[in-house]
């Protein structure tokens, strides 16, 4: 197994280089002229401005030169400068990371709580109504466009019923708590401000439910399959024979073992999480990395698009690596191909 891990680790830098190269190629073989987004269309017939802008953004160099400079900068942690915010892309992303993490953690909490419950119920009532309902509910979640379900839920719970707040991390007039972790829920508690704490929680509910519903499908399916595996084993029969109550068998005996292989859920649902985060941040005006990516793409801000793509790719790569290794540890039957 250690050979497998070492081989995966050796492949990592190569894959990262591949990601960087492809992201670079994609954003540089572009039809749109990045100059237009830098200096605006009106200045495009002014040769002095063009020359200055080209020198400023390194566009006067050849493509291989630009590539080497970019990779060199990356190694020092410099992701380039956003055309839109005129700030380092790395800094931009770092500032927006906590908002995304807070949303994703909340969504995973919602998704796994309901997903695991649904999975256990589906396994217990296999092929009966509850099983079909759980499958349909989960399937709808992964089939719904989150930018639409978010809109509908906002309409119902914010506009019509008025029980939950609108988009954003806090009410428009509220001040963010002093920065500690960047998680408003934690920072407000650190500052001892319970009103902001309640507000940040209530603002989290809708986006977390929308995103959580989207990842619930894969969670409940994994738990169901894993539970069915475990429920067929002899020790479950033994537990039932000894007169353990059904909830006790399900939770204490079966679920504890069934959850081990599904601990890698985070890894499996990461792709769904990223897709969902990008789109639900857009609809909930959530100031995270997803809405940054959308703004970058809308404004054809190529350095930012490249930065987001590379960071997203690297994160995806790392999660998959950790997932696969964790999975290999958890399930010794796995083959190291």
């Amino acid at each position, binding site marked *: 197994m250690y050979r497998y891990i070492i081989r995966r680790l050796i*492949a990592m830098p190569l*894959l990262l280089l*591949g*990601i960087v190269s*492809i*992201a670079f190629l*994609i*954003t*540089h*073989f*572009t*039809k*749109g002229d990045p100059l237009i987004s830098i200096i605006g269309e009106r200045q495009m017939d002014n040769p002095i401005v063009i020359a200055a802008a080209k020198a400023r953004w390194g566009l006067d160099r050849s493509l291989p030169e630009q590539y080497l400079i970019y990779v060199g900068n990356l190694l020092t942690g410099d992701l380039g400068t956003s055309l839109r915010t005129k700030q380092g892309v790395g800094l931009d992303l770092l500032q927006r990371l906590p908002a995304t993490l807070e949303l994703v953690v909340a969504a995973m909490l919602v998704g796994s709580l309901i997903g695991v419950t649904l999975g256990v119920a589906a396994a217990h009532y296999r092929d009966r109504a509850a099983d079909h309902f759980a499958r349909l509910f989960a*399937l*709808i979640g992964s*089939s*719904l*466009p989150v*930018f*639409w*379900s978010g*809109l*509908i839920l*906002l*309409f119902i719970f914010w*506009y019509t019923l008025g029980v939950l707040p609108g988009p954003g991390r806090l009410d428009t007039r509220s001040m963010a708590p002093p920065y500690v972790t960047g998680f408003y829920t934690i920072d407000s508690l650190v500052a001892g401000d319970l009103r902001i704490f309640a507000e940040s929680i209530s603002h989290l509910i809708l986006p977390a439910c929308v995103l959580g519903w989207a990842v619930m499908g894969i969670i409940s399916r994994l738990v169901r399959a894993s539970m069915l595996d475990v429920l067929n084993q002899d020790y479950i029969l033994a537990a039932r024979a000894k007169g353990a109550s059904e909830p006790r068998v399900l939770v204490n005996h079966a679920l504890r073992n069934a959850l081990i292989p599904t601990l890698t859920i985070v890894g499996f649902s*990461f*792709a769904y999480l*990223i*897709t969902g985060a*990008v*789109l639900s941040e*857009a*609809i909930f005006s959530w100031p995270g990395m997803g809405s940054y*990516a*959308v703004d*970058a*793409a*809308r404004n*054809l801000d*190529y350095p930012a*698009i*490249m930065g*987001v*793509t590379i960071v*997203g*790719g690297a994160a*995806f*790569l790392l999660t*998959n690596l950790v997932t696969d290794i964790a999975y290999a540890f958890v399930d010794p039957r796995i083959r190291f191909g």
Partner: protein
Amino acid sequence: MAESASIHATFSRPRWLTAPVAAGALIVLFWAGVALTVQWWPIDDPVAFVGKRLAAPSETHWLGTDALSRDVLSRTLHGAQHSLPIALVVILSAVAIGATLGAIGGFLGGLADSAVMRLVDITLSFPPILLAMAVTASLGPGLWHAAIAMIIVWWPIYARLMRAQVLAVREREHVEAAVAAGASAPRTLFAHILPLCWSPILINATMDFGQVVLLIASLSFIGLGASPPTPEWGQMISEGAQKFYQWWIAFGPGMAILSVVLGFNFLGDGVRDILDPRTQ
């Protein structure tokens, strides 16, 4: 299971034809029919200004009208003419590219295989939506550019599936027999290996169809796909998000996307049950 099987036998219903599969097939048939024939339906022009702006659903406009007083129901139905053909092109192209490269890699092995698989590994290292956004932004916004982006996102999946199939089938005895009988390499590949490799690709392609529709709509929603006044579902939801209080503008296109994605998912289950007896 034994009793239910005998009951089912009296209806002589094939095992794979469950209620969800039938529902999925109906939904898919409905939308395919709409996409093919909607221009002859007696409904409003999807880009014509009819009646009042932002009118709530009524007898004349079942799903109301949007900010430019266009009929939302008509626009929703016409949306099928954009999403479905593009998804079809994306899936067919991705399968064509992926299956070809995967088959070549799996059959030849060696350098060709390594080259293809490294490219697959790198492409699959990107979260799909980010890669699609980057490619579309770089080509310039537009539905067909979004389609190219999605082909780039999807082909590696089919390359992997095809390669794995070819590798498995290549070891079977009938292939060995064909080679021993003197079949040429192309003949071995095309006549003896490839015909047995299509099941997983067909299953996945059916399931992915809905996901492609979803991603097209997502790109359009972000503003990278269709542009106004095209009645495309993601674009319509984006217009609905701007007119938030008029819920009906986004309702039709959202339901359309949901039904298409669910439909292909259900249908995909049926295709899998038919083609892959092991899952039963």
